[in-house]
């Protein structure tokens, strides 16, 4: 089984230096595009490969690029930004790539920047990824040294500057337009779309923001072609994907596997199945902002279409498992606490709705819930939907809640009726 993205990553070992990376074929794609391919050809190649954005939305990467104005009429300044602000709860796939092989990211960024003819690029890195920051800083310096960055890369006449920006730890910055505002030194509030960043992005200039994993796929697509990339997958969605599992499984972790592998395979073959004494109840397939899937969904292939058809989203592809000894209300409360805290405070439903939901869940979990609280939770799941709020944060937050209300409703009701959490070992009479 091919694992192009992680082939040179060995846990516990320092990432490859530029020389070592070149020795195993690194930066070949950069030399290739500069010599052989026009930006449009790169765009088309990636479009044909059916690479879909790995940040969660799953939009065709080549298509996304194609909206950037090109040619002589286009603005002289354009930007490429690598979204490395990985803060989705339960998600740690980009971290593997960032810490394990930073040159692969830089190579991918050069390819993407070249495709849209951007001359300035940024890595927007999560604040807490200290090790990654160190490795990327070194890798960028090496790349400049070797002439892969800076003026006239490899004598081609194409220039690209690259900067590392470490955020301050805000989930909101994972949203591409909020990321751009943060990068400009403004509040990390999202921007309205349209205009899309491709037209008016960083500093009002055409900008592409791509996820780290997406960018890491690019060198391999350039080197091996779009058909090869499609062939890696077991489903309609091309390539391999970094899948992760956390929760009470025997061997939680992150693995590069073919797109379309079933949930059960990932859980049982790679994560080793449930820990002894714990039973599976459900899972969030792609991070905290995706809907629960349950037992009946375990044989679904992990790809964008199949998971969506089951009422959830593949998101980042890193699943969180809910077991039978964890209270689903407490589980969801924990997530809502995170989302309420990470709301930027720009739009009303998210700013004031999420804290309300959080307090309702806390209250229910403490045994102080009231029957009408279920209605309050439900109207939030209805009205904090996509389009009603300014960005996707609150709709994402509602996904685990609405599916929990669907699959674990009796647990919520039991809390309210019995005035106590059935999972709590201490009897807490309501006040």
């Amino acid at each position, binding site marked *: 089984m091919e694992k192009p993205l992680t082939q040179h990553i060995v846990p516990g070992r320092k990432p490859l230096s530029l020389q070592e990376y070149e020795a195993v074929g690194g930066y070949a794609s950069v030399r290739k595009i500069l010599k052989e391919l026009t930006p449009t050809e790169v765009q088309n190649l990636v479009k044909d490969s059916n690479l879909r954005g790995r940040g969660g939305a799953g939009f065709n990467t080549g298509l996304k690029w194609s909206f950037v104005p090109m040619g002589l009429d286009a603005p002289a300044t354009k930007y490429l930004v690598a979204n490395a602000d990985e803060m989705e709860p339960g998600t740690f796939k980009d971290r593997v790539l960032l810490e394990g092989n930073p040159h692969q990211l830089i190579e991918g960024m050069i390819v993407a920047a070249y495709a849209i003819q951007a001359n300035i690029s940024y890595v927007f890195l999560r604040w807490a990824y200290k090790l990654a920051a160190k490795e990327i800083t070194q890798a960028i310096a090496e790349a400049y040294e070797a002439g892969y960055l800076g003026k006239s890369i490899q004598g081609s006449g194409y220039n690209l500057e690259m900067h590392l920006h470490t955020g301050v730890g805000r989930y909101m910055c994972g949203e591409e337009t909020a990321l751009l505002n943060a990068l400009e030194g403004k509040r990390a509030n999202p921007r309205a779309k349209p205009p899309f960043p491709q037209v008016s992005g960083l500093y009002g200039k055409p900008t592409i923001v791509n996820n780290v994993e997406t960018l890491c796929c690019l060198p391999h697509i350039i080197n091996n072609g779009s058909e090869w990339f499609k062939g890696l997958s077991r489903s309609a969605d091309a390539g391999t994907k970094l899948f992760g599992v956390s929760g009470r499984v025997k061997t939680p972790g992150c693995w590069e596997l073919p797109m379309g592998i079933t949930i059960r395979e990932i859980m049982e073959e790679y994560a080793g199945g449930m820990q002894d004494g714990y039973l599976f109840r459900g899972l969030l397939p792609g991070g905290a902002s995706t809907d629960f899937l349950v037992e009946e969904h375990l044989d679904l292939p992990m790809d964008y279409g199949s998971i969506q058809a089951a009422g959830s989203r593949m998101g980042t592809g890193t699943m969180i498992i809910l077991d039978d000894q964890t209270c689903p209300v407490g589980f969801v409360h924990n997530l809502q606490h995170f989302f309420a805290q990470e709301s930027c*405070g720009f*739009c009303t439903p998210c*700013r*004031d709705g999420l804290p309300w939901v959080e307090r309702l869940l806390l209250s229910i979990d403490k045994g102080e819930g009231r029957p009408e609280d279920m209605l309050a939770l439900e109207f939030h799941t209805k009205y904090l939907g996509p389009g*009603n709020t300014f960005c996707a944060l609150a709709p994402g937050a509602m996904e685990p809640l609405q599916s929990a209300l669907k699959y674990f409703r009796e647990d919520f009701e039991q809390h309210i009726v019995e005035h106590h959490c059935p999972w709590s070992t201490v009897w807490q009479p309501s006040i």
Partner: protein
Amino acid sequence: MATIYIDNVPYEVTAGKNLLEACLTLGFDLPYFCWHPAMGSIGACRQCAVKVYRDENDKTGKLFMSCMEQVRDNLHISIADMEAKEFRAHVIGWLMTNHPHDCAVCDEGGSCHLQDMTVMTGHNYRQYRFDKKTYINQYLGPFLNHEMNRCIQCYRCVRYYKDYAGGKDLDVFAAHNHLYFGRHEDGVLENEFSGNLAEVCPTGVFTDKTLKQHYTRKWDLTTAPSVCHHCSLGCNIVAGERYGSLRNVTNRYNGEVNGYFLCDRGRFGYEHVNSMSRIRKSLVRTQLPEATDKYKALQAAASAIKAGRVIGIGSPRASVESNFVLRTLVGENNFHHGVSDVEHDLSDLALRILRASAARTPSLKEVEKADAVFILGEDLTNTAPMLALAVRQSVRQQPLLEQVSKAKIPVWQDAAVRALLQTEKGPLFIAASTNTKLDELATATFFDSPDAIARLGFAVAHFIHEESPNVNGLTEQEEALAQQIAMTLLAAENPLIISGTSSGSDRILKASANIANALCAKEKSAGIVLTLSECNSMGLAMLGGHKLESAFEAVLNGYADTVIVLENDLYRRAATDKVKQFFEAAKQVIVLDHLHHATSEHASILLAAGAFSEADGTLINNEGRAQRFYQVYPTTEDIQESWRWLGELGTVIAHDQIVHWEGFEDIQKAIGHELPELKGILATAPPADFRIAGQKIPRAPHRFSGRTAMLANINVSEPKPPEDPDNPLTYTMEGYRGQPPSSMIPFFWAPGWNSSQATNKYQQEVGGALRGGDPGVRLIEPNPMPEAPFSTAVPQHFQPLANHLFMLPLYHIFGSEELSTLSPAVAERIPEPYVALNSADAERLRLEEGQLLHFSIEGQAYSLPVKTSAHIPTGTAGMPIGLPAIPYIELPAWAILNGKIQWKQQHQTTF
């Protein structure tokens, strides 16, 4: 135009607008918070949600925020859709989770947009069952009260204060539901337009602190349309009264003039009306001044006039009517302008320029649309504040036109437009004697003496049109700058030249006129704005009259012995000694004013005039726009308008013209007859016998309370409501309930809209002109074929004088204007007297910041603490003008230093 379907009914709406604006224009009650007609949309509050359908067959639809949707043809939407309604009600529910529900003790109550929107959405039962958060409020200075607990986080305050008005010290802090809108620490809000926060804020976070001192609910105020008396721009205001005292001033929308905003001097300067130094009763001085009633005062004045040889001194802060009646009473030849002679000449020159120039003088709204601006010698923020705010908007015009359509972003989508344009600004050039607040926006600045500014202006005119005279001896840098300015102005669609009388330099005005004429000769639609010093400086100039100096002479050489001074403190107009000598020489001094001051001390007969809120009148602003202001509340018999006093005097002495005038309109007719240029003032407002459905227009809203009880402590029988003979307004709530003509809107109110947001309902199109057109009549239009378009008065280069400093006047928004300084809130913001000195000069004089500089001007000695400045030219200095603590000096003037000092021969311009 586009056709849209709202709940299946077709409507014609303007294309290019957003859906919220379109719905509001059509008269729908669609609630909103974060959108503001002057500031556009950001989509934050989510209050204006409607159902949008894909096409006529789509029955499901999807919720969209109407403020973020462009109007397009064949758009199907629903406002009444149950889901949309439920969502809008929930938005209120969310907003209110931490709102204190303290309406009963909140200053905003009764004029609160949040209250209105809550009622509009139908949200009434609180579902949130948890504790509320509380915040610590801040001290924000004398103008605004801060109550953060009421905040609904609509972001309007920071968008207005930072993005629109250019403020630096208000921001949004923290995140999620801990947002805090305030300063980084307690302190005075620095921006000169901060008071608008009270109206921009949809609830009671920012409220008028001066109103709090004498609080009255909006529904209990008697209000009338008025015009601001604190500078020459003539912003439209609503003044509100209860129990005989003026309670507040709020904005009166005029699409052409001030739009939605006022400056802080205009909003908070009103309290001179309630001042302790008000003249409440007329006085006649026999041995001692003695308060007397109206008739005795009239008799005394009449006999003085009959017995004496009379001259009259008019005032730039009195109405056209008052000045005109005085002029008629004393005779055209005996009418003098109560302004300094320099100001007299400059105002006259400005008027002649506007009459003769090929360039049009634009309204403030048109200033906002200028795509290249050149300011000569004016510190607009301090001399004509709202013009500075308009210029601030204009610098966005040029990049906006160029880029927004290319990126296909609608101009109303504010956040997107700002993200696209970033800090990009259109051309703005400022030539001034010292740094101004607009410098931060300028493409290039030029700091030098008034003569050097004029030379630069002449050079620019010459580069635009070779017939305008050449300037010799410019430095290379000056020449390059003049070239750059000339090219930029020529490249613009609507270039604008701004100058004014505050620098005291006729050469700057002439240079400005040359530039404007040069641009017009090159077939540009150029504009020229000239700011004047006071609210009716233009009106006074248009009336014509002699100088103040000649009034002094007339009395001193015995030509006259009786003086009538109209609403004027001559100690602010000429040197103390001269004025004193003048008054002492006069046998009789009749003073009409509403305030005691040094001049009123000399009055042998003092007539109690009404303040602006106690009078009807017309002011002519710097644009030449005549605007009517109305009396707000009735006064006692002892106080009346100056024109009424003078008219009655004329009747008592049987003046052949005045005796035939029966009231305000007769005066206006006589003005139009005698001065055809001013005929337009008759059209500024409907006549006094104007009625709608046989009814007058009420000054008080229908919810006005306590009318029968207000005077019950004096007499339990309710008195007959006082009548106003001068206009069609009543002093009570009786009268026509609908919308009055645009020139006489006493308050903005519509069913369900109690706050100032009701303005929407008075406009033809939301954010556009008032129904029936924006009020005011322009009296001066450009002359397409100027006879002598180019002045040749190019000055020589300024040369510093040894042992002297050329003292320039410096203006302060709070302090330089007479009336507003009597407002306690404004008084708190008046700077201490100082002298501004170039840092290098200060070093040469061995003076540090704060140390005293001793100098004398015209024999008057001064010792003022030094403020060093990098911008004020060497060999010159600046001194704040008009401050209550500094007696009159004619500036600019040479100040003699007490020490010996040699300046560098070749002085330097700073850029």
